[in-house]
């Protein structure tokens, strides 16, 4: 790992010590599209080191909720607070710099490039080198070793030189996670990380999420439809319904919650 | 003042012609996603075939036959050369291919009919000034306006009220969904390409009446037509027509005050449109980005 990444993430990827209070706080946040209230007065807190799932039926506002956190959409009401700082008016770029990094529901990779190149651009961006028209041997070595470190973390060893567009869908999503990791996230947002995957691929992804949380102490918020995964790995679960928080709590409490069962689980399978 | 009025009016007449060219280009661009650099080539084909046939069919017969033959050649070209490359998403390949076609057409024309300019004789009925004062409104120019208007209205009716037209419009809007609904989009695109070439051929015959025929005659007309499409809005056929009229008008007015800029003005307008309102007057946001 390079000096620069270490400085920003601390020894093992955990946030520097000394800050208390929630990592992310959504304060009565709304996003209305005309009369449609996609997200409607949501208050939400998340602490460093958490592994949290967001669930809810289709159209519950999950992706809009992610867009509000990541800055793709400005809220029509309320505040977004990250590490005690109001970031409501900040752009995607500023939020990424603070460590809010996301993946997408639809796979977003650089399809004609190799796994290595996909991750390298993430590493270089994290090092703020994008505008540099040259590179020294030492810097290149440092970048490459960081890239291989990430490839190692996500278990894509041996596929570094494969073209991403030619990889299996599951591996493409893993590449996405690796690219997100390259930005040294403080808060990693995963939008349906296992969507469209086969069983084997899903297992691989679930294992990856679990390891990121356990070994790297990563704070992860993910949207997921597969209840086996949600209840299998999430520490806490937030249930959205019609743009509002329906319930929130530990998996056992959520699965026992009659409102959730009525509004959601019952109708699911 | 009278001069300005005359020139503005005159510019509009000129714009009608650009509109006709732009309409054919826009059809092909919208549904076939082909930047058709050979459009000028199909114009030349229509014009020269009309010229070759006019001794046998007369002007009127040639006016019909030229464009139809251009469309037929267009259909063959589409089937043989364009269809294999639809799956390439990058429009640069179709651009390169049609550019090659344009070179071939120009060269073949010169080989067959020679490099010298040829006159297309037009009937006396439509070849004299209509009024003493508005001397620039010749019968032929009125004729061009009438034919163009008829073609545009015909296309509008076709797109509006026939099954084929409705499918073309649907395809322009969302090709994948149209295909999913069971429409044979290969046939649809082929027919649409044919329509585009029909318009090119018609432009060619009409142009030949004013400009005469030369093998490179299509080259100078193609860029203003692209400009018309951008100003009118990519994806909007109505926009292409309006764009054509606007650049004609603008060139006409500029001629009155500053003739040296009469060509540059359309590019200046396009620049302004692209900076201020890139989707053009009637275009949709984000098409063909």
């Amino acid at each position, binding site marked *: 790992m390079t000096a620069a990444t270490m400085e920003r993430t601390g020894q093992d990827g955990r946030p520097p010590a000394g800050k208390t209070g929630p990592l992310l706080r959504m304060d009565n946040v709304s996003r209305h599209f005309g009369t449609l209230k996609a997200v409607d007065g949501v208050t939400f807190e998340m602490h460093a080191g958490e592994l949290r799932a967001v669930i809810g039926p289709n159209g519950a506002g999950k992706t809009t909720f992610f867009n509000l956190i990541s800055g793709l959409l400005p809220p029509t009401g309320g505040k977004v607070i990250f590490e005690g700082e109001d970031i409501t008016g900040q752009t995607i770029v500023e939020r990424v710099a603070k460590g809010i990094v996301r993946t997408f529901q639809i796979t977003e990779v650089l399809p004609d490039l190799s796994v290595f190149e996909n991750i390298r651009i993430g590493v270089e961006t994290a090092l703020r080198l994008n505008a540099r028209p040259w590179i020294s041997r030492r810097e290149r070595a440092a970048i490459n070793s960081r890239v291989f470190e990430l490839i190692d973390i996500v278990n894509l060893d041996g596929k570094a030189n494969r073209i991403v567009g030619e990889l299996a869908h599951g591996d493409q999503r893993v590449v996405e996670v690796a690219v997100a990791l390259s930005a040294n996230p403080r808060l990693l947002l995963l939008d349906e990380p296992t969507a469209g995957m086969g069983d084997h691929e899903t297992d691989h992804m679930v294992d990856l999420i679990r390891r990121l949380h356990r070994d790297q102490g990563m704070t992860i918020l993910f949207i997921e439809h597969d209840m086996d995964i949600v209840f299998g790995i999430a520490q806490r679960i937030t249930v959205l319904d019609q743009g509002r928080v329906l319930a929130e709590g530990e998996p056992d409490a959520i699965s026992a919650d009659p409102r959730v069962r009525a509004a959601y689980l019952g109708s699911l399978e | 003042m009278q*001069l300005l009025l005359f020139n503005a009016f*005159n510019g509009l007449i000129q714009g009608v012609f650009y509109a006709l060219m732009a309409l054919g280009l826009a059809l092909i661009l919208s549904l076939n996603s082909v930047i058709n650099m050979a459009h000028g080539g199909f114009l030349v084909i229509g014009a020269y075939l009309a010229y070759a046939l006019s001794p046998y069919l007369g002007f009127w017969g040639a006016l019909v036959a030229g464009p139809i033959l251009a469309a037929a050649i267009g259909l063959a070209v589409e089937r043989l050369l364009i269809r294999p490359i639809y799956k390439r998403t990058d429009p640069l390949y179709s651009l390169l291919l049609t550019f090659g076609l344009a070179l071939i057409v120009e060269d073949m024309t010169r080989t067959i009919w020679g*490099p010298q300019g040829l006159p*297309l004789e037009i009937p006396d009925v439509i070849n*004299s000034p209509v009024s003493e004062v508005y001397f620039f409104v010749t019968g032929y120019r009125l004729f061009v306006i009438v034919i163009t208007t008829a073609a545009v209205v015909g296309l509008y009716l076709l797109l509006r009220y026939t099954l084929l037209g409705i499918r073309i419009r649907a395809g322009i809007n969302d090709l994948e969904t149209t295909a999913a609904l069971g429409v044979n989009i290969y046939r649809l695109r082929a027919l649409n390409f044919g329509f585009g070439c029909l318009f090119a051929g018609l432009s060619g015959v009409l142009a030949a009446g004013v*400009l*005469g025929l030369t093998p*490179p005659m299509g080259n100078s007309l193609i860029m203003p037509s692209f400009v018309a499409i951008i100003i009118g809005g990519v994806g909007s056929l109505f926009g292409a027509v309006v764009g054509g009229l606007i650049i004609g008008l603008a060139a006409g007015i500029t*001629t009155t005050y500053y003739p*040296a800029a009469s060509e540059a003005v359309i590019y200046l307008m396009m620049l302004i449109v692209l900076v201020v309102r890139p989707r053009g007057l009637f275009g949709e946001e984000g098409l063909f980005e």
Partner: protein
Amino acid sequence: MTNKLPSVSRRTIVKAGAALGASAVFSPAILTYAQGETPIKIGMHDPFTGTYAAEGESEKRGALMALAEINAKGGMLGRKIELVTEDDAANAGLAAQKAHKLIEQDKVSLLMGAVSSATALSVNQVAHEKGMIYMVTGGHTDPVTGAQCHWTTFRICTTTYMLAAGLAETLYKKFGGKWYFITPDYAFGHTLQESYAKLLKKMGGTVLGNSLAPLGTTDFSSYLIKAEQSKPDVLINLTDGQDLVNSMKQAAQFGLTKKFAIGGGLSELEVLRALPREAKLGWWTLEWYWNQPNTPHVKEWVAAYQKIYTDGTYPSARTWFGYAGLHSLAMGVAKAKSLDAVKIARALEGLELPPEIKLQPNKVYFRPGDHQLMSSEFPGEVIQDGTYPNLFKVAEIVSGEKVALPVAETGCKLDYKS
């Protein structure tokens, strides 16, 4: 190298070559060379594609006629000559590139050609740099034998000034002195218009207005509207080539040809032929015409042309440019008795063309001061309802010497190295 021979160069030339072989007038020597002698190559660049292709083709035909004649009489310095033609597509950069090709790859000894003025100027630079004689056949712009003249460059076609001077007086006397101009907006047009305006003022007339039309304009209606509004005696239309065809067609369709006289600068047989019936009118200057009943050798030359080129065409001024151009080079070499460029240049200065080559009545010679050929202007009127080739009635054949600017006013200073 056989591919550079006329026999296989182009479709039309295939015919020409066959005809040459069969012709009784020209010996078939063109296809065979004297043993042991390498032929002298002459490079010709002209547009054979694009807007000026017809003019380029005519120049090439004329040059090929001269080629056959020269070879029939034993060639240059006892060696056969060979013409290597290159298509410049009327593109100045490409013309310069092709000039390099002719010099470096084909090892030509002499250069000729040009329809577009820009190509004449770009090859003018190359030829000078390489110290090679360059005979401009058809680029009219003044600087070629004016401000940008070089010791290496000679020109057959007349200057823009000479074109204007050839016709101005005729028009003034016949129709009156209130003139409106439509001028192509490039150097050729500007100088031509200035020349006309100067001549008109000298005679006591007035310039009512001048519209600058960009080169390649297809629609002239706005300029014609302006012209009509000024109610001139004469509309001077200085456009050239396809632009002239377009503007005349539109003027005729607007009925303007009945309202005032229309005249102009240069016209060409190729252009007149492309005009539709109703636009065949007006007063123009040709630089050579096939129908000169009283000039010796012309009839024979036209017949010779038609024996080779059996497509029913008549030779135009362009054909004569190519013909006179190559003959002039041959005469220069013969007089210099050498292929040394300086010697040829000196030999050409003042050289007078003999009657069978000049094909016109007046004295025709290369003026020593600017290397401009003093050939005649043929002002006259288009024959209404004329059919090809009887399209033009020459009013007068004006000696070039009379209408050319004095050398001192051309801006030319020949740059021989002392």
